[in-house]
């Protein structure tokens, strides 16, 4: 039984906390430091928030179910503008050619980090025990918590 608390401590603290006022990770720090990790990617609540925003901000309008459509698929291994958290962050904030609008100022930084975390979870790049499970809709794809981690291939825009 002594092991149990230890085991849980390791797994729980980051994953479970629900800080509704999370100050966002520092962007400049994220872009300069190569070994930067987005803390929200280990937090189940942030990932679920990212998932909620992904549909509520109608991201799935172009990236349907993460499966693509007008915009590229976000579930496969191809990353046009980079797979690192801060790169995804930049893509959302800056916008990209061929239709990806910029959401600077209109989506608060914390939410962008949450979205970035969720987008990376679509191809299995976040801890399984924190990733979102299935939602209460039609099943277009297996839930993020059961998605195999995809290799990362950086490709150029089509």
């Amino acid at each position, binding site marked *: 039984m002594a092991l149990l608390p230890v085991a849980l401590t390791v797994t729980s603290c980051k994953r479970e906390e*629900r800080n*509704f*006022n999370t100050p966002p990770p520092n962007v400049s720090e994220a872009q300069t430091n190569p070994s930067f990790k987005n803390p929200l990617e280990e937090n189940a609540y942030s990932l679920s928030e990212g998932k*909620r925003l992904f549909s*509520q*901000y109608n991201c799935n309008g172009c990236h349907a179910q993460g499966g693509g459509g007008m915009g590229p698929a976000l579930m496969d291994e191809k990353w046009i503008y980079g797979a690192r958290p801060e790169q995804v962050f930049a893509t959302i904030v800056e916008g990209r050619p061929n239709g990806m609008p910029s959401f600077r*100022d*209109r*989506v*608060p930084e*914390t*939410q962008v980090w949450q979205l970035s975390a969720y987008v990376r979870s679509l191809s299995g790049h976040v801890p399984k025990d924190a990733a979102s499970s299935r939602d*209460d809709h039609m099943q277009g794809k297996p839930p993020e918590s059961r998605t195999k981690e995809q290799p990362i291939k950086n490709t150029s825009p089509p």
Partner: protein
Amino acid sequence: MRARQINWGFLTWVALVNTTVAATTQSSVDPAGPQAQHISQLWWVMLYLLTGVFILVMSLLSIGAFRRRSKAAETSGRNVIQTDSLRETKMARVVMGGVVVTTVILFALLVSSFIVGRTIYSIPKEPTVLTIDITGHQWWWDVRYENQVASQIVTTANEIHIPVGRQILFKLNSADVIHSFWVPNLHGKTDLIPGHPAETWLKADRTGVYRGQCAEFCGHQHAHMAFEVVVESEEQFQAWYESQLKSAPAQLTSSQSRGLQLFLSKPCVMCHTIQGTDAGGKVGPDLTHLASRQTIAAGALQNNRTNLSRWILNSQDVKPGNHMPPIPLNSEELNFVLDYLESLK
């Protein structure tokens, strides 16, 4: 009117346990509509009847326990009373009688609740003049007044205006988890269960503002998921409805238009709709007539400039966990936005 005077009885009962006098804007025993009326009558019947039963049983028990006993109760060597069969059979008869009486009372109560049940659910005779769609969200209420003509549909939030004395049909849906629609002064609860569209009808006998609240635990801010039902005269209602149909004012003061610009360039626009502007978000409440509402944040705050700014700058201090992020605005920008929002009459 019976219900009123009974309500005085209730208030005295409250006073008995020396407490604050019951507020009646959210009370199931201060009925303002037929259903609540019938239910509260049932309540008073039960209260008086069962209080009687309670007193009776308790006095039986206390007499049984504390009555003076004859010293000459014969006992065996182990100091145990020898029961004599004659007395036991007598007691058995009494107990039997008690059971019979209980059964009779229960049957009476059963019948009365059947009757009340039928009345509050009997299909309304009069035709439905007004149908309102209510959608429960974590943690606010979306309100839409149905109409065949799209331009005649009114959309608002957390505040339901209805004409007095008219019967209104409510269509209830949930956008996420289970909520429960409850206006104590008008009627009991109806759950909003995903995948199970529900209906209920309300009718108010007297004008006034009645508070409702979500009655099914629905997450972090279940405590702050209230709404108000404003019951007004037919004319007032029509006037209100007309005003709600209008889209947001076109000509604005400079500060108001600065406010609108900010609204459209800041996170606000992602979630909120303002008719007549580019703001068309469907995530949060429709703000087209925000200034006309009594409260903000689903009844959490009175609608005034101070509370509005508090809410915009950091809603998470007011309703931790709600889905509105803190909006980064400096005090100047904030004032513009407030000026604009307050113009949305």
